[in-house]
């Protein structure tokens, strides 16, 4: 990154006294700038702080991103502490609210997603720490007359000559100094925190019940609202009778909102009772005709023809006609609900032309704008407070601000401060799913079984189309979040004739990014197909893949490490079988080996070994935790994940029919980090993609069966 520091770092005095370091990134544009920050200057400075050093010696780091389990509550302060020379445990960590100062350095809006936080903030947070350290040192030097280069910072203090100052003692004066033009960051050899495993800073409050999630917001006068939604997705209220609902003790008010009828009560129980007593007549929306069976047939038909060109080389149909053997496969992937453990909720208080919102969101600015629009308020009159997120996985990054808008409508219609709480059923049936996707693949093999031609079509709803208000219009109707992982797959480097096509579909069920997004299905298709190709060639699946990775060293490094550590060649206990898969996602490279057995027609996953090359691992233990998490998320998706629809009605309800993998289904997991100088990638999502295909390939090794549609629970193995 090459940025003019003077344009984005600013220091200033805190109202309460002390030093404040804030920064904005000039001219960061949207998706197009992915990986590169624009260098144009001229945006105004923001008054919001990323780092505050109080005269009371308090050190507060404000996060531009939100903590939803991925560990940035620890990682971002690590980056800052590294340069500031403070004890990590001395730092008070807080979420920033909605403010342009917190815009993502790459996306240009305020977002936590895409596994981007650590690498995109790597320079920014270190610079903030270094800038503050220099200013504090300058003050100490001035006060003592000691030369700056003879002043030493350590553990929140500056030693100058024989005198020692705490940062707090220097903060007020430091705030008056101009920001240094040049800041030199520490070299790798001098890192104290970066690259070392650090314990999570939020673990304490997450083990004693004190962590506050959106669900836990309480204040006098706050009421609870629940919403009756249409049984047919997206249906509208025709009429309702609230007489019985209002007779329930504790029910205060019943109001109609655009998405249904809200019951407002003293507590959740009373509100739920009210909802049950409510009688609503619905007008069905356009989802009424949708059924999974019909959808499957329609998407299969679409994917059987070539769609919009995503990637093309040579002539795939010529190549296929010249092939010695052709493998054909049709894959079907269902809609998936994110189902974060904390059901969606949002607290809204409207008072004197201002609105305050508390919600676990990955998109605070989007929620702010949506609330402003609904209320007719200026955005600066909407305050967004972000407590801890009880899981996100993409569901709390809704470009339409669906659940926050709903809560704002309830507060507006009722005139009361309300905490809207969705039931688990509201969540499972709430839409914004991982899309339903069909892939159609034809692979042509030469006489030695090498793939020489490949024709690949994908049919899916576009996620980005629904996110245009946030991330801009799609170029050429090609949604990378549908095709990522097929597009740019390393295997195509050695397949001369190939075509990748896309069919964008439209449905009345909204779709959304779901942890690892397009890779949830594309890695499955590529890795099970390549396994099939390897098997046809009579080759070992690990050895065979190596041949394709000559120009892809990071794929190869991950594969080699997992093959070595996971003892790929070692004989397994009777009845146990292995499968492998490799994927690149969000800039990280992951290779996974799954060991399974088959019992009563169902798969049992015994062990998963996984190697990751994410470049520098800022907090290696945090990386391991994320990889474990991704694997288990992938396991759930492989075994159970499925939302089905009949006549517009979503069929699943709660965890009894939308199952999540549990502890007894969790295999032994070993994570290995590749020592790498490569570009930093993300780690929150990348372990999901190879999990399901590694399991499926192990199932093939065990049974000779190829699984072309998930979840596995639908197959008798």
């Amino acid at each position, binding site marked *: 990154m090459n940025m003019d520091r003077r344009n984005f770092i600013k220091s200033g005095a805190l109202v309460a006294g002390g030093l404040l370091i804030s920064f904005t990134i000039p001219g960061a544009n949207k998706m197009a700038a992915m990986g590169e920050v624009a260098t144009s200057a001229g945006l105004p400075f923001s008054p919001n702080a990323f780092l505050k050093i109080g005269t009371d010696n308090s050190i507060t780091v404000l996060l531009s991103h939100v*903590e939803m*389990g*991925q*560990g940035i509550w620890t990682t971002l302060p690590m980056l800052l502490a590294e340069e500031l020379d403070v004890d990590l445990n001395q730092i008070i960590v807080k979420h920033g609210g909605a403010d342009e100062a917190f815009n993502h350095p790459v996306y240009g809006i305020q977002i936590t997603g895409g596994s981007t936080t650590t690498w995109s903030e790597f320079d920014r947070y270190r610079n903030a720490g270094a800038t503050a350290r220099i200013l504090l040192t300058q003050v100490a030097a001035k006060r003592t007359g000691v030369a700056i280069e003879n002043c030493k910072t350590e553990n929140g203090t500056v030693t100058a000559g024989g005198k020692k100052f705490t940062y707090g003692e220097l903060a007020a004066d430091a705030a008056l100094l101009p920001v240094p033009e040049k800041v030199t960051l520490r070299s790798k050899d001098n890192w104290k925190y970066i690259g070392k495993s650090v*314990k999570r800073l*939020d*673990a*304490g409050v*997450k*083990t*004693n*019940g*004190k*962590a*506050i*999630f959106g*669900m836990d917001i*309480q204040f006098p006068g706050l009421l*609870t609202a629940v919403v009756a939604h249409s049984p047919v997705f997206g249906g509208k209220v025709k009429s309702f009778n609230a007489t019985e609902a209002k*007779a329930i*003790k504790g029910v205060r008010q019943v109001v109609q909102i655009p998405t249904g009828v809200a019951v407002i009560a*003293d*507590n*959740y*129980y009373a509100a739920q009772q009210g909802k049950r007593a409510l009688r609503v007549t619905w007008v069905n929306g356009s989802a009424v005709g949708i059924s999974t069976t019909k959808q499957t047939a329609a998407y299969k038909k679409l994917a059987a023809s070539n769609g919009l060109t995503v990637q093309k080389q040579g002539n795939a149909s010529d190549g296929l006609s010249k092939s010695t053997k052709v493998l054909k496969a049709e894959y079907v992937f269902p809609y998936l609900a994110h*189902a*974060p*453990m*904390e059901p969606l909720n949002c607290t809204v208080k409207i008072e004197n032309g201002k609105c305050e919102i508390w919600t676990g969101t990955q998109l605070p600015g989007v929620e702010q704008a949506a609330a402003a629009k609904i209320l007719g308020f200026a955005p600066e009159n909407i305050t967004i407070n972000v407590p*801890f*997120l*009880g*899981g*996100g*996985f993409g569901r709390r990054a809704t470009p339409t601000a669906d659940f926050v808008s709903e809560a704002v409508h309830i507060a507006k219609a009722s005139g009361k401060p309300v905490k809207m*709480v969705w*039931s*688990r059923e509201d969540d499972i049936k709430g839409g914004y799913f991982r899309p339903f996707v069909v892939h159609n693949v034809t692979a042509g093999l030469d006489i030695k079984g090498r793939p020489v031609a490949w024709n690949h079509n994908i049919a899916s709803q576009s996620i980005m189309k629904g996110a245009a208000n946030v991330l801009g219009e799609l170029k050429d109707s090609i949604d990378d979040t549908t095709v990522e992982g097929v597009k740019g797959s390393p295997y195509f480097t050695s397949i001369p004739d190939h075509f990748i096509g896309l069919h964008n579909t439209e449905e009345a069920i909204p779709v959304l990014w779901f942890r690892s997004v397009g890779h949830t299905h594309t890695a499955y298709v590529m890795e099970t197909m390549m396994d099939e190709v390897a098997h046809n060639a009579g080759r070992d699946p690990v050895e065979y893949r190596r041949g394709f990775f000559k120009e892809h060293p990071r794929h190869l490094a991950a594969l080699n490490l997992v093959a070595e550590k996971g003892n790929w060649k070692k004989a397994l206990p009777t009845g146990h079988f292995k499968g492998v898969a490799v994927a690149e996602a969000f800039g990280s490279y992951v290779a996974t080996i799954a060991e399974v057995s088959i019992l009563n027609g169902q798969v049992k996953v015994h062990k998963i070994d996984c190697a990751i090359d994410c470049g520098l691992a800022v907090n290696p*233990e*945090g990386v391991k*935790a994320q990889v*474990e*998490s*991704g*694997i*288990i*998320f992938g*396991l*759930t998706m492989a075994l159970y994940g499925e939302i089905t629809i009949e006549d517009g009605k979503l069929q699943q309800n*709660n*965890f*009894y029919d939308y199952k*999540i*993998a*549990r*502890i*007894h289904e*969790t295999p*032994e*997991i070993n994570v290995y980090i590749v020592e790498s100088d490569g570009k930093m990638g993300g780690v929150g999502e990348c372990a999901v993609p190879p999990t399901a295909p590694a399991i499926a390939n192990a199932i093939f090794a065990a049974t000779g069966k190829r699984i072309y549609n998930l979840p596995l629970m639908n197959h008798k193995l």
Partner: protein
Amino acid sequence: MRKQQLFTYYIITKVSFVNNNYYMITLKVNEKAYEIDASIDMPLLWALRDLVGLTGTKFGCGVAQCGACTVHLDGEAVRSCVTKVERAVGKNITTIEGLSLDNDHPLQKAWLEFDVPQCGYCQSGQIMSAAVLLRENPSPTDQDIDDAMAGNICRCGTYPRIRAAIHQAAKTLKNK
């Protein structure tokens, strides 16, 4: 006087004619008495969260499928989302807030040592389930842990660390 009341199942007054299952109820939570005006049918979860004001116990599913709401009733683990408040009257209710004085329960310490929490939302329930397991079985095997903890979902997938932390806490307890 208060102390005596705590251990008696008692009801003060009927407060509503419309919903005649509403009473003034005393709940003993974490060694402290709380008086609430509640329907005896109200799930304990909502009494704890919305009436008593202790939010460490979490709502995850409402149908005893996820375990996020696990609390102890006289030392037994129950899913408070399906446990009527009536059942808790006169009993010692322990929530995550009352498990230890200062995050010093061996399980909480082990949870920190193994960096268990991610989003953290399910962890109150996980720890409360594990506490009963360890009390009844000081040396649980992996199978014992599976049996005791299978009712608690963690969407972040912290299960391997939960398992390791329970083994660690068991060791700590044994060495005491």
